């Protein structure tokens, strides 16, 4: 339970856009620094949590916090400009103000992953919800075993965090398997060509003492879960993070539920076992 008595729970904190990074032609990262010193010092979150971001005059949009909780003093969000609010958020420039409410929702139980191997599987714009955890784990590298990242997008241009992909590729303590859909590769492409589930199956990470963290469009999840099962992963070894349309983020406004599960409060992080028990409403 949170004690938020006598506070307007819908009132955002103000933050300043410190940096704008174009990940793809329509996907953008904003690096944000809270304007209030007290908020800057006290704001803490766990990998997997989300926030509501305001473009004043347009409204709020829901995204995960894409930076790692180990990186202090700022947060990052990453979004595709596809709607009214995200189009407005994309217009923001360094120095502009933005509203942030959060952090909300549950998080990855990272402490339970200590001593285990990790396999991250992401598709397209779904890397940011895992990237927070990837950096969290890399910043605590000696607490984990092997780290494998399988990441794919439709085309080379659609890959987000390209600089970080290069960085992970160079590291000897990370195995990065990057892929693009057939036809999405240019002449310089040095990664795999194929859909994420297929490439994951070929990469064949061992399920022993391993946790898989999966995030992607519904169709990718649908074909990835059976592959993980085939590789020997039980439903409790697989985590994903769900996304449903939200407004309040606080378990009140009533739209993000999947059956009787509220993504904003019970999630967004769920095990494959939990997801399989849910009705198809996500």
């Amino acid at each position, binding site marked *: 339970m949170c004690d938020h008595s006598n506070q*307007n729970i819908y009132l*955002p904190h103000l933050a300043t856009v410190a940096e704008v990074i174009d990940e793809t032609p329509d996907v953008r990262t904003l690096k944000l620094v809270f304007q209030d010193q007290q908020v800057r010092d006290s704001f803490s979150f766990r990998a997997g949590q989300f926030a509501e971001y305001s473009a004043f*005059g347009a409204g709020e*949009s829901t995204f995960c916090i894409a930076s790692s909780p180990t990186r202090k003093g700022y947060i990052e969000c990453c979004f595709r400009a596809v709607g009214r609010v995200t189009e407005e958020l994309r217009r923001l420039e360094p120095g502009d103000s933005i509203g942030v409410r959060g952090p909300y929702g549950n998080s990855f139980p990272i402490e339970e992953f200590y001593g285990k191997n990790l396999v991250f599987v992401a598709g397209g714009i779904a890397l940011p919800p895992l990237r927070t955890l990837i950096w969290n784990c890399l910043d605590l590298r000696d607490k984990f075993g092997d780290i494998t990242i399988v990441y794919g997008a439709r085309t080379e241009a659609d890959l987000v965090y390209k600089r970080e992909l290069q960085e992970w590729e160079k590291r000897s303590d990370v195995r990065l398997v990057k892929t693009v859909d057939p036809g999405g590769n240019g002449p310089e492409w040095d990664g795999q060509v194929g859909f994420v589930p297929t490439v994951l199956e070929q990469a064949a990470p061992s399920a022993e003492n391993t946790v898989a963290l999966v995030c992607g469009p519904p169709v990718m999840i649908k074909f990835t879960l059976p592959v993980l099962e085939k590789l020997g992963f039980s439903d409790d070894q697989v985590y994903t993070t769900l996304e*449903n349309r939200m407004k309040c983020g606080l378990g009140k406004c*009533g739209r993000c539920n999947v059956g009787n599960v509220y993504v904003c*409060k019970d999630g967004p992080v769920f095990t494959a076992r939990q997801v399989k028990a849910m009705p198809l409403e996500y």
Partner: protein
Amino acid sequence: MQKQITQQNLNALLDTLIKEGKRVVAPRINAGTPLYEPLKSSAEMITDQLPKRSGKEAFFPLCEDIMSYEKEGQQITLTDIDPARFPETVLVGVRPCDAAAVPVLDAVFSWDYKDEFFLERRKKTTVIGLACTTADDACFCTAVGLSPSDSKGSDLFLTPLEGGGYNCETFSEKGETLINKYKELFAEPDNATTIPLARPQTETFDLKKVKAWLDSHFEDPAWDSVATRCVGCGACAFVCPACHCFDIVDEGTEKSGKRRKNWDACGFWKFTHHASGHNPRDQQPKRYRNRIMHKFKYYDDKFGQTLCTGCGRCIRLCPVGIDIAAIVEEISKKQE
């Protein structure tokens, strides 16, 4: 505490409260439509018609400001809403189906994060319920475990007496405080007879059976048959005393404006529509299923309460004749 009050003294009480600056909300006629609205005088109050919308507006307005913003260059200034501005309120003449919804709403607005907009108004409001002496064929409070004399949600409850006036019974400290403060207007109860109360005709639902069926029938052909004709107008949610889904929207320009919390409805296709185009409830029967599930299963799973008080407004208003009472009754019969 049991008392009696004459109609004249009830009017005097309301007029005194209005004079003291309190907001007195009661059923009144606005352009031909009965609604719960602030009274200018007790003479405006009506007691013979169920308002078209429920009493929840006294705590949870159809549309309300939750902050405002102003932009100057790259700087934004946000202005909070001071809950002190919510007036002391007496909500009077509230039908049992509307009063009973208030504690149901308490659950969602007070669990975990506290919604001060609802809770502060709630704290400052005294609810005076009024027993129903008439019911129409859409009324089904008795089917969901309430009754025309149910005091759930009322601080003070009025039952009309033969020959005029009311029996008053208190159910909270707020009710007692009100009577004590204006005790000269109340009399000790005599043996006056109460007017026979309404008797809604719908059979009592076995809500446990209803929930048991819903627990195992998320996918069922019945959803298509009951809700393919739903046009998604959302009227059912807007007149419902217990529906509480809302939207958060900005109204204004880039320079200045307000952020508002507006009623919303799970029947609208856009309610769950993602910006990507994906919609988890992409067809009307799926949206109607959520309405029934939320009322008779999800809310119960979470808060141990049913999110329906049987007021019947959605039945009266539905443009395509969807009858929630008939649907729920049918469900209870399907469950062994």
